[in-house]
């Protein structure tokens, strides 16, 4: 049947070229992606991973707004050099509430997947205001307006509602709240309750005092709260390394 076939037939027929290209590409997609939805081994169920609190979620929004992802990845690969520098390799489960996830592969700056708890709040504040003042060789720009700008909290509930539609278990009613209590415990469930979002956001900013100024909630509060929670949800001392090996 190929005897009379000429590639010219495809190349001179835009419609046929389009259909055949899409077929070729979708075979790749089907083979690589579709099975992952059915393979039990690849779904890591890791204790400790929870959705972000309202303040952390707003910080995450700012992280995306400022384009941090263009220079920072959030995925530590399972290589020895990365483990030594950044900590335990990232697990898929750790970004299961990220929409969109921030894995990335472009590292002008270091990976941030486990930056939480590594530095103090004041270091982060100083570093975001003027990175060169603490890391002289840094090429990161200054983000001083985070400290000067009050955080817009008017739509925090709407933002959580939008994420709830994508499957993030923020609770909108008592039944969902109860489900969260069972899944995450009461302390965490409270922070995921949409009707209390604003109250929770303000109290976390007050207690955490991330930007060193308790009088108001700045964008710096949200950003530092987000950075400080990155990679800290899973307690790896309770996980056997060989169990993670067997997920693959």
């Amino acid at each position, binding site marked *: 049947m190929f005897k009379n076939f000429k590639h010219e037939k495809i190349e001179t027929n835009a419609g046929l070229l389009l259909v055949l290209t899409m077929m070729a590409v979708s075979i790749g997609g089907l083979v690589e992606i579709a*099975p992952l939805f059915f393979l039990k081994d690849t779904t890591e169920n890791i204790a400790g991973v929870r959705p972000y609190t309202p303040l952390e979620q707003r910080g995450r929004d700012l992280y995306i707004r400022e384009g941090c992802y263009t220079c920072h990845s959030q995925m530590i690969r399972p290589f020895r050099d990365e*483990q030594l520098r950044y900590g335990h*390799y990232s697990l898929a489960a750790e970004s299961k509430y990220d929409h969109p996830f921030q894995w990335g592969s472009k590292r002008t700056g270091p990976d941030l997947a486990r930056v939480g708890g*590594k530095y103090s709040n004041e270091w982060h504040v100083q*570093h975001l205001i003027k990175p060169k003042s603490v890391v002289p060789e840094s090429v990161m720009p200054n983000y001083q307006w985070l400290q000067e700008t009050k955080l817009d909290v008017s739509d925090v509930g709407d933002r959580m509602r939008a994420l709830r539609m994508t499957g993030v278990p923020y609770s909108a009613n008592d039944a969902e709240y109860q489900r969260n209590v069972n899944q995450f415990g009461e302390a965490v469930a409270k922070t995921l309750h949409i009707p209390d979002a604003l109250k929770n956001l303000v109290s976390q900013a007050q207690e955490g*005092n991330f930007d060193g100024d308790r009088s108001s909630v700045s964008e710096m509060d949200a950003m530092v709260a987000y950075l400080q929670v990155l990679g800290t949800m899973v307690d790896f001392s309770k996980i056997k390394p060989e169990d*993670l*090996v067997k997920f693959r």
Partner: protein
Amino acid sequence: MADNTHSQAKSTGVQTTGHVWDGDLQELNNPLPVWWTYTFYATMVFALAYWLAYPSWPIGKGFLPGMNTITYVNTEGKEESWHWNTRAKLLKETQDAVIAQKPYYDKIAGLPYEEIAKDPELSSFIVSAGKAVFSDNCAACHQAGGQGKVGFFPNLADDDWLYGGSYATINQTLTKGRRGYMPPFNESLEAGQIDQLAHYVFSLSGGKADPAKVAKGKDLFHSQAGACYYCHGDNAKGRMDIGSANLTDQVWLWADVPGSPDDTVKIDAIRKVIVGGLNKGVMPAWEGRLSAEQIKLLTVYVHELGGGK
């Protein structure tokens, strides 16, 4: 342009695509070079071999696990094998590296600090391995040489210590972290009193200040109203158990006295600290992030930066 479709180029006899530019420029329709097509087939054969050798295609509810296995030691201390994957490879590599460094770390874990610093072989290990760990984890705040940053992070290379410069206290600082705190005095003291205190504190480290204010500041310092002595001590030399600063040693961490041009600005820098207090000086705890041996290694490294006691 397309009037001579499928004609042959006059000079070579090869079939053309029928495209002609400038009257005589034609696009020849040559077949792919033979070396190219065979390389292409070779990549397909390579892919087949690769799929068999390494984990690849999903089959039913499982997948092709590849032909290689990796043997590592599990948490129970038993050898265990699993099909090749990057996580197993990392676990194995980490365990091999731990074994390679074990003689050093065993020696570090077993020896008292003083012996470690004296041992020439261990010293060079500490300089190289300690520098790597320090650069990754500590240098962001304390800077590459441990010189710190006035107003933010203490200098580790001098002999002035907030919480103590002995091996034991450095180790405790690293393991558990620290949290500095000084209450603000803007509500309990009046502006004039704070001014007197600032003059007195400046004079403690040899600064030239108004003697009248210094005398009044000294009384305040030791009074119940000011109560500075409670944390900084009767002699103003600080208390290492709570990390209060020694005010008499001319070393300034929180008030940028050395960076100020004249005495008025220097005193003003001190005044600001008394007014606002300090709720900073947070040192993160490293026990979850670094191993006990790494912390011991860092303890010696920091101690040897210049000021260990």
